[in-house]
């Protein structure tokens, strides 16, 4: 059999299958669409979470306290070393500037600072780290290197807060991955169950095909093609849903949570990469479901 006539036969057979059991196929397409829509929403939420982390990470500031005995030249030397080590922006804060900032932050209580015999605050360097180093491991390594540098008395960067935030993000990502796997598994089962109904109605045809000498692959191919079509349709519906969601509710949500999420929320909900991933996932779900379903009816 030529490849073309085979493909023609499989397409014709798949079309007949879709025509004969439209309701069953509608259920399968809807199930796939709901699963993929949920997956797309989860991906959108993960992206928002990343934006949130990045925006919080951007606020991470490392403060390097210098030894009080350093003279002005030595301070500049340490500043140059810190700049070389971090690769970010370094601001020198004199003891007087630090004291007046502290007074301003303390408000009425700040007046008490005037009673101090001398300024106890050391010269410090405020370091704004570049984005690629705003993760707990990189920050820890940077702090270690800074502490070891001569002329540095101490380093503070809110280590505990950064690690807690990252742990929360990791837990959320892992949780969503598990939930996604469960949803995909359940979808394969539902799609297989619904497809079995469609295949059951054509069991007579399968039996005759087998009796006249069709191979298992030949019998399976149209059903797998049906599954593939369902997957593509399901993915298309899910993508349309995500696009519509982004268009209708995206701006409102962005405005509502702008104080927390930053500018990333304005990004489109359907990106080419996500569309491709959902399309592949849809094809996988449809093929997987039909593969499981058709296996049962081949024993003639």
């Amino acid at each position, binding site marked *: 059999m030529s490849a073309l006539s085979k493909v023609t*036969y499989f397409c014709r057979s798949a079309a007949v299958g879709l025509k*004969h059991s439209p309701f069953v196929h509608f259920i399968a397409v809807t199930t796939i669409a709901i699963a993929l829509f949920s997956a797309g929403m989860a991906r959108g939420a993960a992206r928002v979470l990343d934006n949130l982390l990045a925006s919080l990470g951007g606020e991470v500031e490392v403060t390097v306290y210098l030894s009080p005995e350093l003279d002005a030249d030595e301070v500049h030397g340490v500043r140059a070393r810190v700049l070389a080590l971090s690769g970010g922006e370094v601001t020198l804060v004199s003891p007087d500037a630090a004291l007046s900032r502290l007074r301003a932050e303390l408000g009425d209580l700040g007046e008490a600072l005037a009673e101090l015999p001398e300024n106890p605050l050391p010269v410090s360097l405020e370091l704004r780290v570049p984005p690629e180093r705003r993760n707990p491991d990189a920050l820890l390594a940077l702090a270690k290197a800074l502490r070891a540098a001569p002329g540095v008395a101490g380093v503070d960067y809110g280590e505990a807060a950064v690690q807690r935030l990252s742990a929360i993000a990791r837990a959320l990502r892992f949780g969503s991955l598990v939930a996604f796997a469960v949803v995909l598994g359940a979808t394969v089962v539902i799609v297989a169950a619904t497809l079995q109904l469609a295949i059951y109605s054509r069991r*007579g045809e399968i039996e005759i095909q087998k009796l006249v000498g069709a191979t298992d692959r030949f019998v399976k191919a149209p059903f797998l093609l049906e599954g593939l079509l369902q997957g593509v349709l399901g993915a298309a519906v899910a993508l349309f849903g995500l696009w519509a969601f982004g268009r209708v509710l995206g701006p409102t949500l962005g405005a509502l949570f702008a104080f927390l999420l930053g500018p990333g929320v304005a990004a489109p909900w359907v990106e080419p990469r996500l569309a491709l991933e959902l399309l592949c996932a849809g094809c996988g779900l449809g093929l997987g479901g039909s593969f499981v379903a058709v296996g049962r009816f081949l024993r003639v």
Partner: protein
Amino acid sequence: MIQFFHVYKAYPGDPPVLSDINLNVEKGEFVFLTGPSGAGKTTLLKLIFCAEKATKGQILVGGRNIARIRESAVPYLRRNIGVVFQDFKLLPHRTVEDNVSFTLDVLGVPRAEAREKVRRMLKLVGLEHKAGSYPLRLSGGEQQRVVIARALVNDPTILLADEPTGNLDPALTVEIMDLLTQVNVRGTTVMVATHDATLLSRYQKRTVRLERGQIVSDEDGVKAARRMVV
């Protein structure tokens, strides 16, 4: 063409359906398999087209030992065997023409060639004018003729018929049996399972009688027919 050597078939927990079957069917022969219901006629036919596997023994079909055939080779064996069932097994939503060409679709025969073969086959079974009809609008005899056309359209060397006239009235029975005889004359080996004694006496072909899973007699047509009359 078909040889059974000490073939047994049993299902777990049940007495054997077939016991020590030894049978040799020559190429181009016409053989009736007869016996009461439950004697093992259908099982014997199923062993030939690998719908069942023998528990013990050897079965040669066209010189090939099918007792040891790989699962993946079964479809290719079946392409040389036409099968006709009592309950027709036609696809109700497909026309007569589509039902007959179904076999050729599976074999990948190009559409134009398939159409020509189907037309010739429908002419042979006298249903050329019903090509566009649906099976449920045909009489029982016509439906069975469609099944025979489907079984023969790819020129198999063997035709197996399991009670092909079981659902038909006497006139249609003769019609179908005449058709099977005609197919046999063209060179196809034909095995027909039936418990209809009138067929055996009318057509006088080699008759293998099964009882409780064993062959109790294997007689040529005249002898068998004489016994039927007595």
